């Protein structure tokens, strides 16, 4: 049963446009993540928040910015998309930051034309 909800599921946009992806979890978890799954299915961590505090900020282009209003929500904004941003963006949550199972949303597929 899904407990991590992402919107939109699919988005097509042109180079240079701004895109936002939303994520909400109903598990009561403290930690949320954004992962990027590229065309080769590689899963790379982008950001992690614990109780609304940024704790992991991997080397991603500055056009990417996470936003968290409370511990149940973590959004991802891409200010000016590039073709290489085409991917599936996966939101996840866990009970806490260390050692716990991640629960993923179904992903938001971005296609940049």
């Amino acid at each position, binding site marked *: 049963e899904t407990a991590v909800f992402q919107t939109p599921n699919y988005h097509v946009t042109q180079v240079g446009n701004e895109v936002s992806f939303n994520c909400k979890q109903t598990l009561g978890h403290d930690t949320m993540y954004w992962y990027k799954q590229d065309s080769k299915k590689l899963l*790379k*961590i982008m950001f992690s928040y614990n109780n609304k505090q940024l704790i992991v900020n991997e080397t991603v282009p500055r056009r990417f910015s996470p936003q968290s209003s409370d511990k149940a929500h973590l959004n991802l904004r891409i200010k000016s998309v590039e073709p290489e941003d085409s991917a599936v963006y996966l939101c996840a949550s866990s009970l806490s*930051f*260390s050692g716990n*199972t*991640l629960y993923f949303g*179904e*992903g938001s597929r971005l296609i940049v034309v």
Partner: protein
Amino acid sequence: GDSVTQTEGLVTVTEGLPVKLNCTYQTTYLTIAFFWYVQYLNEAPQVLLRSSTDNKRTEHQGFHATLHKSSSSFHLQKSSAQLSDSALYYCALNQGGRALIFGTGTTVSVSP
């Protein structure tokens, strides 16, 4: 640097035969837990197995894995593959204070 290696990109197996997916890791940090995740087509990745105890077998849904710190391995096995096992499998490790690190993934294709 820290890494998780899955040597097979694609594993093809006939239904009813055993399947094994390799996973080795390299880390300089204290590692808290190891995972296998499975992602079915057009679905979210979901946890299949989790282990944090050396030399202890962990089982779920017919799959099993044993963490061997001596060889830095956490291979996934199943004695009899089913058509429904066709999916993408990720090995991952969680280090204290760091986000989950995933391997490159292994696609399993089970044929009749």
